[in-house]
Each structure stands twice: as structure tokens, then as C-alpha cells.
């Protein structure tokens, strides 16, 4: 069992690059990736509303 477990751990460590890369991925995603996506999504929302105003609705009431 023990050997099996450590073998699996070694395998997964090899596949993912270990806990170090887990930490790197987590921090990049939480503090860089998702905030950028959020700002992008809000900007896209703003543009869509603006274009809808231009094309159909006119200035907001």
C-alpha cells in the first residue's frame, strides 16, 4: 500500500509539477486571471448596453 501510494504521489507530482506549481497556478488565477476576466466582462457588458442604446433603445430613461 505504502509503496503504491508514494508511487501515485510521485506520478501525480511528475504530471503536475508538484505543490509548487499548484500554488503558482492558484495565485495567478485568483489574483491576476479572474480579476482581468471580471474587468473584461464588465467592459463587454458596458459596450453591449451602449450599442443597444445606439441601435434600438436610445439614451437611457
Amino acid at each position, binding site marked *: 500500500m505504502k509503496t503504491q501510494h508514494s508511487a501515485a504521489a510521485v506520478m501525480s507530482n511528475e504530471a503536475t509539477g508538484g505543490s509548487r506549481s499548484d500554488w503558482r497556478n492558484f495565485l495567478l488565477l485568483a489574483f491576476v486571471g479572474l480579476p482581468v476576466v471580471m474587468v473584461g466582462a464588465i467592459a463587454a457588458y*458596458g459596450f453591449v448596453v451602449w450599442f443597444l442604446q445606439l441601435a434600438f433603445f436610445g439614451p437611457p430613461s
Partner: protein
Amino acid sequence: MRKLFRFIADLFLRPSVRIGLGVLVTGGFIAGVLSWQGFNTAMEATNKEEFCISCHTMHDNLLPELQKTVHWNNRSGVRARCPDCHVPHNFTDKVARKMQASREVWGHLVGTIGTREKFKEHRLVLAQREWARFSANGSKECRACHDYKDMDFDKMRPSSQVAMRSAAARDQSCVDCHKGVAHQLPEMKGARNPAFDTLVSNASGQSVSAGNEYYLVVPQDLFADEALTQRIGSVEVATQVKVLETKGDAQRIELALWRKNKGYGRVWYSNFGLNITSAILDKEMARDAGLVNVLASQEDPMTGLEWQQVKASAWMRKGSLIDSVEPIWTIARASYNTSCSVCHRQPDEAHFDTNTWPGLFAGMVGFTSIDQDTARVVLKYLQSHSSDFSTSQHGAGSPEGALQTARP
């Protein structure tokens, strides 16, 4: 590309082996709090006066103008900053407006309004855009501070009370009347009514045949020769003319109008006894028997003046005639209804007679933002639909007899 997808899929689907769930959730929570706070801080920073006037167009043009008004400083020490009026306060409209500002950033980079002169040139368009926004939302931003429900009308001057009480009853947009409260007004001189563009393009597509009657969609100069070099006068918008011939870019038209036989008789009117200006000839031409053909004379019993029925032909540039006067009246009616109802209920067209309208109109038009061309059309519309031409109740005091002789 494939690798990137694989990486993202792994990132979301494969569980972390070494980091505890609590640590991940806590870390994500903190990151979320920080980024949302950061976003709001950035929104607030771009909504500050310092940010607005950091661009020199705002700093050099709008700020000094604002500083002369009550919105900059006043006895109570409450003041309006740029975004208080110009950025919507709720989230969706605010974000949309901020994205719309990408256009302004582009304008700043290209230098569309980089100098005071350029700014003044564009000012009317910019102002109209902002007025349209205020009229659509009922001046919501103004009313964040000045709302009808919080006004004590009794404390207003009596003359203000009349206007404000009826405005409140109609829930009227503030900027309908209060234009130019925080910045200088644009020069209306170059203003054009875009409605005329359609009319002019319709006119250029109008097929014109000799011998038929048409109406002018814009005022035109009249010439004695086909080369259009010798100017003899001008003909007004919505005047009915008969086309005699078309040669190249020029068109010979016949005017059949009336004039007062007094002085030079330069101003020609469309009907007997009614001051609806239709053409204005130059001094020498108006008395030229070779040009002007007097058909008949008649005395107006109201004024004792002698009126002459006159006929003349002249050349003008082609492409400004249409076969029906109704499209012109439609524009005039729309303009009359919107511009005049801003401050009071507009009187019925037939409430006054033709010769009363010009005086009334001249007294009121200064309070509106109607441009000169539109004003001429609106006046002519009112005169042509006055009690003199109406069969309704209002027609009582009209010079009925005069009209019967003028009409065929």
C-alpha cells in the same frame, strides 16, 4: 492553442493535491474582496473632477465656464462636480457611459477638439448629444439635487411659480428650459435642422416637368439669366412656383404672387391682403416693367392699401422643388409642437390670423432653440394654417372677403 485549452481545463477540473480546500477558498475569498474593492476604487477614481479636468479640453474649455456659474460656488457651499451631472448614477447606465467614453478618449488622441476654436465648432453637436440624454431621462442627474417633490413653490418668485408648478405637473425635464446653466450655450447660428436633409434629398430625386406647379424645400436665389450670374432676388421656402423649362443646372420658374403697391414693391406675398412672404426682389428689378407683369389691382379694405397681382419669371438652381407641400408642413408642425410646448401649451394654428402671427412669432422665437431656417418654415406654416385659411370656430375675425377673392 490546444495546449492553452488543455492547461485551462486542467486548472479547473483537476483537484489540487497539496493545498487544502480551506486555504483555497480563503485565498479565493480574499482575492475576490480585493479585486472588487480595486474595481470600485478605479470606478470612483475615473468619476472624480480631477480625472475629468486632467484632459486639457475639459480643463481649458469647460472648467473656466463652470467656474463663473452658481454650480461652482454659492452661498450654501454645495457644489456640482462634473460626474454629478454628466455620468449616470446607476450601475448599468454608468458602465455604458464609461464605455461610451472610449469615443472621447479617441477624440482626445486624434485631437478632434484639441483647440478652443475646434471645440467651439463642435460644441453644438456635443451639447445636442447631452441635451438628448437629459431629455430622455427627464434630467435625472439634475434631480438628484433639485427634485420637484422637494421644492417649496411658495418660496419662489411669482413668475417662477407659474412656470415651475406647471413643469412639475408635467414632470418636465429640467434641461428643456434650463440650457446653459453650467456652461456657455453653443452658437445656434450654424445649427441645422436634420429633418431638412431628407427633404432636400427627396427634392433632388423629384422629377420635374415643365408646366406643373411645385414647392420650394429651401430658399433659393433668383437670377435673370440662365447662367445664374445676375441675381435679382430670392424666393422663400414652401413657395409655390410653376416650372417653365429646365436647362442644365438651371430652371426657369414663374412666380404668380401679390404685392403692395407701395414703395418699390419688393416683397411679394402668396395671397391678397395676407403678409405671407414668398419672394423678395432687388430694388431695381421690382419696378422693371420688362420683368414684372402686373395683372390686376385691388384695394385691401382693412388697410386701404392697393395690392397688385403680379407675375414674373426667373432662373434658379434646380433640385429644390417637390410636388407636395405637405412634407414641409410636417416638419414645421413637428418643430412647432415640440419647441413651443416646452414652456406653454402652443396655441392652435387657427387661433390667430395670418397677419397677427409674424409679430407673435418674432416675440417668442427667441426663447426657443429653433434655427433660422426652421423658424422661417414654422412661421410660414402658422400663417398658412391661420384663421384666414381655417373653417373652424377661430376663423371669426378673419378678412373673409379678402380671401375669397384671393382663392381661385
